[in-house]
C-alpha cells in the first residue's frame, strides 16, 4: 500500500477529520485523537486490510510515517 492510500485509510477511521494529514503529522496531537479513536483506527485497518496494530505499536508511534512503517513491516 502506498503512503497516500494509508493516509486515506487513517482518515476514514474518523467521523469527520478536518485537519490536514501528512506523513510527518503527529497523529496523537490531532484535535480528534482520543483513546477511543485508537480503537476505531485499529478496527478500520483490521477490517480493511487484516492488519492489527498492537497496543505497543500505537504507544510507540509518533507520526503517520511511523504507523505506516509498522503497517508495511507487518
Amino acid at each position: 500500500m502506498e503512503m497516500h492510500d494509508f493516509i486515506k485509510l487513517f482518515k476514514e477511521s474518523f467521523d469527520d477529520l478536518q485537519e490536514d494529514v501528512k506523513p510527518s503529522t503527529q497523529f496523537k496531537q490531532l484535535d480528534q485523537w482520543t483513546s477511543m479513536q485508537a480503537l476505531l483506527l485499529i478496527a478500520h485497518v483490521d477490517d480493511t486490510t487484516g492488519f492489527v496494530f498492537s497496543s505497543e505499536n500505537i504507544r510507540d508511534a509518533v507520526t503517520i510515517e511511523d504507523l505506516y512503517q509498522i503497517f508495511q513491516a507487518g
Partner: protein
Amino acid sequence: MAKFAIDHVSIEGVSACVPQNKVFNRDYVYQSPKEQAQFIKTTGIEERRIALEGTTASDLCLAAARRLLAQLACDTAEINLLVFVSQTPDYKIPCTATILQDKLGLSKRCLAFDVNLGCSGYVYGLSIVASLLTHLKGKALLLVGDVSSTCVNPKDKTAAPLFSDAGSASLLRYQKGSAPMYFNLQSDGAGYDAIITPDGGARNPINDASFTFDVTLGRSRADMILDGIKVFNFSRREVLPNVRELLEYTGMEIQDIGFFVFHQANKLMNDMLAKKLGIDSEQAPQTLAKLGNTSSASIPVTLVQSVHQMQLSMGKEIVLSGFGVGLSWGSVQLDLSKTNILPLIEI
C-alpha cells in the same frame, strides 16, 4: 480446548441487582466535551450505577439472592453449594462466599467458596456450579457481581467512565432429564497485564510508591489499569472463534440460536460481534447505555433486561459469552425456556 457438556442441571431462576445511585458520563469532568461525546458514542455508555460507600458486590448479590429465593419459594435447606464469583470481595481474607452462606441462612453442610474471575466469570461460574451439582445433587446458588467502580481511579478517563456496579443470583438445580449445558472455556495468561491492579497482592505488596499519582494516566499502581487496545484486540481475535467452535461442537448453526448474550464490554465491540455473526441487534441485546460495563455481572444483568428477546426466541437455545480479565473467555449454550427471569432490582 475445554469443550464439554453437563447433563441433568437446570437454571431455575436468575435475578440481578444494581445500586440506585446513577452517574452520567456527560457530567464526567475529567474528559473534555469532545472526548465525552466520542466516548459515549463509541462505548454506548450514557449512564452508570455506582455503589455508595459501604455497599459491596456481596450486598448486591445478597439482595438478588433473597429476592430470587423468595420468588421461587426455595427451601434453603435444599441448597448444597454457594459459589461467589467476583474480583471485589468483601475482604482479602476470608472468602466472601462463607459470609453469604451465613447471611442467607444456608446449612453448614453447604459448600461455599469464591472464584476470582471478571468478565468471563458468569460462564465459568455456571460450569463450576453445574459440574459440582452433578455430584452433590439438590440446589446451588451462583452469586456473581462486582463493584468495579472501587477498583479504578475516578480520574482515569479511559477506564472510570466504563464501569458500573451490579450483583446477580442464579439458582441451579440437579434435575434428571434437563437439557445439557455445553461449554467452551479458554484462558491466556500471556495477557495477564491487559487488565491489572499491579500493587496490593503478594507479588507487589502495597508500599509508599503504590499511591504515587501519575498525572498523565490519572491513576496510581494501586488502581486498576486497563490497556484498552490489548483487551479490544484480544476480544476481536478470540470471542467469535470460541462461539463458532462451541456451535460446531453442538452441531448447531447461528440461525438455530434464539439469541446471544455477550459480556457488555462496549458498543463498538458488541456491535462488531453481532455484525460478524450476521445477526441483528435484537438477537444480541445490549444494556450498555443505562447500565454500563458491569464486569462479571453483565451477562445476568443483560439476561434480566432481555425477557422480551427471550419470548421472541420461542424456546430456542441461547448462547452466553464472557471475555476479559485474565485473559479468560468462554461460552455456554443452554436452554433457559423454563427459567424464571426476574426483573432488575435496585437497592
